[in-house]
Every structure is written in structure tokens, then in C-alpha cells.
């Protein structure tokens, strides 16, 4: 009887090889090396206040990145996250200054964010529209909507019952940092290990095949757009609470930084690949890069150049690596 056996390329080359095959491992190593170099180069780097600043800086986009990488895995994309973030802050701010207590104001604001996501999801999943175009349109529409709602003015002097969300501490750690770390841990476990979230890999890998496997593709997509909108909303609330006011311009450009982080972390715009941990490490990498350049006294204008270069480098290395493996087959 004929049989099909391991070809040499098909087998996992030892445990060590398997571990190094993960993007996360490589990123952790890169971050460790960078950390060691920076610790030597700058006495400030390895202090709690600096680390806290880095983490606080990426708490907003790190939270959105959890949703973005899930969406990228499913083959989707959301450009409206920055606008949704600001929109949520404004809705909450207006509710608060209108006399609504903190808890219902937060719920109301998150429902508003969810509505944005569900509209995105519905148009993309049910009407089969292109995610890039729909969310680009939504990005502009929602930014416009919040300007109309706020009459072009930031909402100031928010009550302390609300600002504690962004300014309070638990065990000496600021809430936003705790929130992002919890979301990353929970999100990574869910996307890696639960059947529900793993449906995203099938949808992004081959949509038609996913349907044949009995996956409710439309539901998965709508869920993902709803989820990322709520996460953007949470980010918006955290940043609004931290500053005690609802800014109208906050979040501009964050959609592209979040996508950059996810891609540095191993996600692909073609869908089917990526992990939450990878996306977070990508965001951490960008945060540490910016922080290091600051500490080393490099002009702030160089930061974009460096981040862009790193994104291109990551993608090019990825491509070379894939082609090498193809040849070995």
C-alpha cells in the first residue's frame, strides 16, 4: 500500500528551529538587544518612570492593535479607528458635561463606538464592499460627525469621577497600562487558542473554503469590526480621562501606526497571519525606538524616518525568508 511520508522540508527542524520560526521570538530578541544597548547608552532608559512613559505612550495604540491584528488575520482592515477614538471621547465628554454620571456616560460612548463598527462590518460583510474604501469613508465621516457634535470646540473640565479612569493607579501602575497589558494577554490567548477566534484565520486564509467548513463568515467579519471599534472607544476614553478633556484631533494618523505595528509583528495585509502578542511587540518596538531616539538626543524629525525604514525592513526580511523556504521545498 502506498504511503505519504515526511519530506525533509516538511518536518520541524528541531525545537530550537521551531522557536525561532516565530516572529515574536525574533522581536523579543531585538527588543532585548536594543534594551541592553540603551541601558548602557543612557542612564535614564532603565528607570521606572521612563518605562512607564513608554508603556503609557503605547497604551492607546496598543489597545487598538489588539483589534487590528484580529481584523488583519481575517483579511480586513480598519482606517476609521483614530476617528472612532476621538468620537468616543467627545460623546462621553458631552454626556458628562450634560450631567450624565460617569458610568452611564462611558456605556453610552462605547455604544456609539460599537455603532460605528457595526456599520463598517455590515457594509463590508453583507454588501461585500472593499474595507479600505468603506473605513476610509468612515474615518472622514466620523471625524466630521464629532466636529459637528462638539461645535468645533474641545470639551473641557471633565469631572474627577470620570478622569480617574485614565489617571488612577493600581499597585502604583496607571490604569491604562494595566488595561493594555490585560487586553494583550487575553486577546493573545483568545486568538491563539479558542475555536471562535481562530475562525479568523480561515476567513482570512480562504474565504470560500471557510464558508465550506461551516464558518459564518459574515458574522465573524461584523464581530471583528464591532470589536475593534469598541477597543478604539476604550482607547478614546482612556486618553480623554488622562487629559481631562475631549480633544477633537486626537487619534489622527493612529490607524496607520497601529497597522504598522501589527505588520512589524508578523501580520499580513493578505490575511491569515498574525498574532496579538506580535502586534503588541511591534507597537513596543516602535515605542522603544522613538523613546531611544529621544533619549539619545536625536532630533524628533528623524523618528518618522526611522519607523518607516523599520517597517520596510521588516517586510523585506519577511519576503526574503519566505522565498528561501519556498526554494527549500
Amino acid at each position, binding site marked *: 500500500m502506498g504511503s505519504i511520508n*515526511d519530506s525533509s522540508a516538511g518536518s*520541524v527542524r528541531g525545537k530550537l528551529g521551531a522557536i525561532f520560526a516565530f516572529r515574536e521570538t525574533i522581536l523579543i530578541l531585538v527588543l532585548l538587544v536594543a534594551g541592553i544597548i540603551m541601558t548602557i547608552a543612557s542612564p535614564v532608559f532603565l528607570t521606572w518612570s521612563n518605562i512607564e512613559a513608554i508603556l503609557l505612550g503605547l497604551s492607546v495604540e496598543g489597545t487598538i492593535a489588539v483589534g487590528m491584528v484580529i481584523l488583519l488575520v481575517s483579511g480586513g482592515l480598519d482606517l476609521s479607528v483614530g476617528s472612532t477614538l476621538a468620537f468616543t471621547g467627545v460623546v462621553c465628554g458631552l454626556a458628562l458635561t450634560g450631567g450624565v454620571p460617569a458610568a452611564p456616560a462611558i456605556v453610552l460612548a462605547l455604544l456609539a463606538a460599537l455603532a460605528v463598527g457595526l456599520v463598517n462590518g455590515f457594509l463590508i460583510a453583507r454588501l461585500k464592499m472593499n474595507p479600505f474604501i468603506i473605513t476610509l469613508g468612515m474615518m472622514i465621516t466620523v471625524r466630521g460627525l464629532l466636529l459637528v457634535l462638539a461645535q468645533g470646540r474641545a470639551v473641557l473640565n471633565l469631572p474627577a469621577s470620570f478622569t480617574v479612569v485614565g489617571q488612577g493607579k493600581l499597585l502604583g501602575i496607571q490604569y491604562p497600562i494595566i488595561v493594555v497589558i490585560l487586553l494583550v494577554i487575553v486577546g493573545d490567548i483568545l486568538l491563539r487558542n479558542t475555536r471562535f477566534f481562530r475562525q479568523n484565520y*480561515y476567513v482570512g486564509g480562504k474565504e*470560500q473554503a471557510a464558508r465550506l467548513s461551516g464558518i459564518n463568515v459574515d458574522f465573524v467579519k461584523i464581530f471583528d469590526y464591532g470589536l475593534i471599534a469598541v477597543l478604539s472607544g476604550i482607547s478614546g476614553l482612556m486618553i480623554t480621562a488622562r487629559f481631562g478633556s475631549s480633544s477633537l484631533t486626537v487619534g489622527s494618523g493612529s490607524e496607520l501606526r497601529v497597522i504598522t505595528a501589527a505588520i512589524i509583528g508578523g501580520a499580513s495585509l493578505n490575511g491569515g497571519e498574525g498574532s496579538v502578542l506580535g502586534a503588541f511587540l511591534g507597537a513596543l518596538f516602535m515605542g522603544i525606538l522613538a523613546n531611544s531616539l529621544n533619549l539619545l538626543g536625536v532630533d524628533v524629525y528623524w523618528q518618522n524616518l526611522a519607523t518607516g525604514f523599520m517597517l520596510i525592513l521588516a517586510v523585506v526580511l519577511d519576503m526574503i525568508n519566505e522565498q528561501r523556504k519556498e526554494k527549500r521545498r
Partner: protein
Amino acid sequence: MREELLTVEGLCKSFPGVRAVIDVSFTLRKGEILALIGENGAGKSTLSQILGGAIRPDTGRIMLEGRTVSFNSPLDSIDAGITMMFQELSLIGSLSIAENIFANRQPTGALNGIKWRELHTQTDEFLRRFNVSLDPRVLVKRLPKGQQQILEFLKAISTGPKLLILDEPTSSLPEQKTAYLMENIATLRSQGMSFLYITHKLSEVFKICDRVIVMRDGRHVGTRETSACTENDLISMMVGREIDNIYGARARAGRDGDALRVEGFSRRGVFRDVSFTVKRGEILGLSGLVGSGRTELARAVFGMDPRDSGKVFLDGEAVRIARPNDAIRSGIAYLTEDRKDLGLYLNMSIRDNLIAPSLRRFTGAGGFMKNRAISAFAAQKIGEFSIATPSAFKKVRQLSGGNQQKCLVATWASTEPKVIFFDEPTRGVDVGSRSEIYGKIEELSARGIGIVIISSDLPELIGMCDRILVMHQGSIVGEVERADFTEELILSYAAGLKSS
């Protein structure tokens, strides 16, 4: 007699302009391998897609184990126990073997968490049952193509279907994997699984199938026990069609000189040491089943696909062809079988399409396009090839299939080629446009251009060609002169039953 699994009664399906399946009835028994054969366009694919739930029939009844069923989607069919193995791979490269086979059926524990160890043990046991020793954790994209195809088969049977529909499952499998597949199909049959086996390879029909149904022009023309018929019986059932005279009548004058000579073309696993010549003004047919390597060969001559070895001579002189651009400049034109994706720029105008391979000719000083020359050229070609359009600026997407194909022929005829490959020149083209295209092909040959027609439509080759080469598994196995043309002879070469 064994119990009936599937009964189909009076199935009909029409598409605009075509009656694809006409009043088809048949039964399929439990634990039976039923072959479905017929020429291209006979309606096999439509019939199988109806059973697989991808297409809804216009009329007719499908009964599974005595109950009438109706499928709105492939998922309905799968739920009812009919799985169709698709030719295009449904595997997801970035996931492991285990997650591909048990797609959306992974064992889960608390909070929807996947029990990885159980999934891997389960997969390992499943693979071992079919003599496959692969690590279930390996990502599918790391497997060679042949193993991926086997995995596709295993995935299809992993849900334990009552009926598995296989459409040309061995068309791109190497021999050893074909043997593996055959053995496992036989084993599964003995366990009570039924198969509908669509194939062009008659040898496979006799090797593993119990009965065979033959389709022709959308109709079910007969059912035979494989033990009680011969290959020739089946071939004449498949053919049985008269050839009309839409191919025109041209002077088949003596020809001198080779327009194209191809020597020693090889590409590992695709075609092997292929040599042939096309004389000036000759119409040469290239026949063979899908997957026999004929399109790949033509694409390699045109520089579009890679080759391991092989030389090309035009008018007796060696030419170096590494890219399509080399071929175009040396005088080779290739009209792809994939008109919509590769042949035409559907969203661009007729005018822009006509000049696409000849841009150099219409570029003037400073790199500017010569718009007046282009307009004159487009108007002339639209007239010459009778493309029905109100304007040269009309988008090609808006033309009928026949006019699109005429546009493609006009485009390539204008590159001043010495030899033209027509790959499936009349697929999806109405009869009127067909005879116009045949007329143009004959005109081009009268101008001394060497013509190669690649076609699955045997009557077309027989009607048009001076000589036909037949490919089977990457080699030319037969050469037939016009005087000896019969469908039976060509089909028997193509099916690998005969070689010269």
C-alpha cells in the same frame, strides 16, 4: 444489487445561451464508484456542481437515500453527506495540517479553548489510518504541492461523506500519488463510501470504476457496466457528433520552409523533450487533455513560463527567448486561453487593447503616444476584424464574448508575427463569431504565417488543421495528418492508449 444512495431525475440547467444539462437521470449505489465521462462542454461540471450544491438546477429532482433533497449552497450538500473535492485547493497555508483537516471542528474544552493535544492526536490517528506519516503541526504551506493535493483529498473524506465527487482528481498528480489515491478510493468504497468520478482518463475508468455514465451535449447518452464495455464503445458514445462546415474551405497548398522550430523543450514535471515544427502558412493543431502540458508548452515557447531546456528557431534562425517581450519582438504571438484575466484589459478601451503589445510602434518623439496614428489603426482593425462596436473608445468589458475574442485576435495579428499560437480560440464564443474567427485564422495562414491552435474542441481541430500533434503527460505521443483525422484516433492518443 446494492442499495441505491442517490437518484437523480430529469435534471435540467440552462445558462444564457447554453443548455448545459438536459433532462439527466441516473442512480448511484452505495459503495459504488460511478465514472462520469464526456467531452469538454458535455455538461459534466455543471452536473457535478448541481450535486455539490454550487449551482441550483432549473428543474428536476435529487433524492438521497430515498428522500428528496434540495441544496442552496455547498454547505447544504456537505451537511447532507455529499462532498465535492474542488480542483482549486481549499487548504490554508498559514495553518497546520491538523487545523486544516479539522477546520472549524477542533475539539474544544472550557471557554471555547482548543484542546491542542487532542487535536494533534486525533489528526495523527486519522493520517495513520491512511498511511500518511506527517507531523500534524506542520504548516501546510511548507508541504510540496503533491502532498497538499493528497491532504485536500483527506480533508474531503474526513467528515465521512456518503458520496464524494471527484473532478479530475489526478490531472495534476504525479504517478506515485495517483496510485496512492486509487488505493484509498478502493478501500473507502469497500467501507461503503460512494464516489462520482469525473475523468478524461479512460484507463482510470476501467481501473477503479464500477459503472460509467456518458454525457454528450448536456444529455445523458448512456450507462455501461465497465466490465461489459470497451474503451472504443465509450469513445464512440462520447463523440457521435457530426462536424458542420463552419470551418470554411481553404486551399491547402504546398508549403515551403519552417516558420517555427522548437527543439528539446523540457520542464521538470510538466513537459519532456518536446520538439516540433510549424511550416509557413500551416495550421497545426495541438491536442491533448487538460493537464497534458499543451498550454504550458505554448507559454514556455512564448517566454511566459520557465523551461529547463529547449531552443526556438524562427525562419531557421535561433532566437533567444527569456521573456514574452523577446518572443513578441522575434515574431511569436500567443493568444491566451484566459481571455478575461490574461488576454484583455477589460476596463480599458478597444483602442488601448489593440495597441497593448505594439506600444513601441505608436510612440513618437519624446515618448509621446501618436494619437492620430493610433486612432487610424484602431478604426482600420475594427473594420478589418468586424468588431461590432459604436466606438473605439468602448470598454472591452462591454463587448460580447465573440467580439472580445475578435479584439484579441486583431491585437495579436497586428504585431506582425511569423507564428501565432491560438489557445482555445473559440471558448465561450457564439457560432457567428466563431466562423469569423476561423476565417481570420485562415487568412493569416494564407499570408504565410505559421498557426498553432491549441484546443479541447476536437471538431474544431479536425475542421481547421493541416496536421495535429497530440500530447499526453507532457510528451507528444501522436502526429496525425489531415487525411487520417478521426476523433477516435486523436482521443485514443490523448488518453494514453496509443502512441506512435
